[in-house]
């Protein structure tokens, strides 16, 4: 919006004789150089992704020269039974982690916001630890735990480790939303004849819904393509896709990796798009703020 306005005023000023052109007073809180930063940010973020996506359609093995369009690397990806199994494993990990992690994280948020006990106050700090723990430490400690209790490494162990890691993300997001809900709103619902369950269903969940959806999508995106934790806790086979890619790279970089990378990127983008679109579809326009930081209308 502001970009079109600025563009418009620039074209108009071309018709004004130079002598009449006066410095237009500008907002002090919108320095021009921020635009340079913005475009630089976009280029640095997306240029490598564009290159990967482009070369995934290359007709030759070259990673430097684009010869022509072809889908052979996608065929190689989906035609490989190992890779297919890995993709399925990653999707399974993502889904299970999303469902269990979101449920546990949401209930934890309820407990932390509502309970006034000393345990809850300690919990509020303790739950931040997984967020600041280096992922490699989380992975190694999960591996140590599983070997200590003699649990065989498999998809299940990856899921347990990923769920443990993801609960905090859910709790942070849902807790913020829950804290913004005045406790009198729940009182009001009960005062007007709603039972505790009805209060949860009719008043609390409609407010939390966008935060829950957002954190579920985030958890899926994080665990679907997570490498570090999965690397330490994975069993023999099938291994999750990122681990599979890592082990195949040891035998030289194959163009198939571009196809896999592009595919995973598209999946992640779709998930994020879904997280933004769902609250809109369900008619909570003001809830977009949860995800894209816009002020509530």
């Amino acid at each position: 919006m502001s970009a079109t306005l600025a563009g418009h005023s620039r074209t108009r000023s071309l018709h004004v004789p130079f002598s009449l052109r006066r410095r237009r007073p500008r907002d002090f809180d919108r320095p021009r150089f921020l635009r340079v930063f913005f475009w630089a940010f976009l280029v640095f973020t997306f240029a490598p992704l564009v290159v990967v996506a482009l070369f995934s359609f290359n007709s030759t093995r070259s990673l430097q020269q684009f010869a022509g369009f072809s889908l052979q690397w996608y065929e190689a990806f989906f035609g490989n039974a190992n890779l297919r199994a890995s993709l399925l494993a990653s999707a399974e990990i993502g889904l299970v982690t999303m469902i269990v992690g979101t449920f546990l994280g949401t209930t934890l948020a309820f407990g932390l916001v509502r309970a006034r006990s000393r345990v809850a106050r300690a919990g509020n700090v303790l739950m931040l630890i997984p967020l600041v723990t280096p992922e490699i430490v989380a992975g190694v400690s999960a591996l140590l735990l599983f070997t200590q209790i003699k649990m065989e490494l498999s998809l299940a162990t990856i899921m347990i480790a990923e769920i443990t890691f993801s609960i905090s993300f859910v709790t942070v997001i849902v807790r913020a939303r829950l804290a913004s809900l005045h406790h009198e709103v729940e009182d009001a619902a009960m005062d007007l004849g709603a039972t505790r369950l009805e209060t949860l269903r009719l008043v609390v969940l409609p407010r939390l819904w966008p935060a829950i959806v957002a954190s579920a999508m985030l958890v899926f995106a994080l665990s679907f393509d997570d490498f570090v934790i999965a690397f330490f806790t994975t069993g023999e086979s099938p291994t999750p896709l990122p681990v599979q890619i890592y082990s195949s790279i040891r035998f030289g970089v194959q163009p198939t990796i571009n196809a896999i990378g592009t595919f995973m990127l598209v999946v992640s983008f779709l998930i994020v798009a879904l997280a933004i679109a769902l609250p809109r579809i369900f008619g909570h326009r003001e809830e977009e703020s949860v995800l894209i930081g816009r002020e509530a209308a």
Partner: protein
Amino acid sequence: MTATGEAIRFEGVTKKFGSLTAVEDLSISINRGEFFSLLGPSGCGKTTTLRMVAGFEQPTEGRIYLDGEPVEHVPPYERNVNTVFQSYALFEHLDVEGNVAFGLKRRKVPEDEIRRRVAEALELVQLTGREKQKPSQLSGGQKQRVALARALVNRPSVLLLDEPLGALDLKLRKQMQVELKSIQREVGITFIYVTHDQEEALSMSDRIAVMNEGRVIQCGPPEDIYERPTGEFVAGFIGISNLLSATVTAPGRVRVANGLEFPVSLPNGCKAGDTVNVAIRPEKIAIDEEVTDDMVSVDGRVEARVYLGVMTQITVDLGHGARLVALEQAWHRARADDRWEPGMRVRLGWEAKNCLVLR
């Protein structure tokens, strides 16, 4: 409206939170159709009292009767009371209509009756035409009205209001005070109104209970509370009060710190030598030329002047640490060059009957 019988009775109600006693031994009964206010400073237990009636808190001791029935085993959602919350507590995801209809829908009232009653309630609070707006699109005063309509539409036997006007600006607050009172007369529902604003309580209530530190200090009609406070706390909390420490010298006579002795009507049981507090309302004090021969009169020096527009408040030093605050109507001195300055000598006077003795 059948304004007979009691709507609510508190019998020795005490509420403790751990070691803190929020409400202590509360025993009052509130009549049907009454506008009853709980007045007191923050933390005096008035909101806790309200929350016990609503069912959000359980009394530690004692009983609460609603329409003659004890309610300790009745959950909030089954009590025939509704609350207007301080924060309004509107449901942000529902529009105005959805908010107001919420209670009726829970009680499975038929669809067409809901529509009719919601329209009536919105008309009562003058919000017709805003049915489809979301709370975020409304001003503070409009949200307040939605909260009121949402509660009233259920026709509760008692409506609880927890400082409902606290967040509004002064002008809107005055306007809503008048409207609340007229709505209450119109619907004839018992209102229990919690406030820390003495003026609000005085202007709207049929009766006021003044609370402090969990106890009801005095309970009665506004005039009684204002004119005949039974203790220092009530006299000091409601309006500005001049309190002078005095000693009883003879039946019907007291002497204050600066040696002035004057007649008062002493409460029963006061005897010579007792120390009492003498209270005089600032607006009952005559200044200078207003002082007549039949008044108790005293001389002093002006210590401070506060111009309030409608009137001027002057603080007069009587010597020996005794001070009186008096109010002078604006029609006496309207010009800046004709006003009281600190240090000027002034004579104050009052009628003996306007002087109240507190023990």
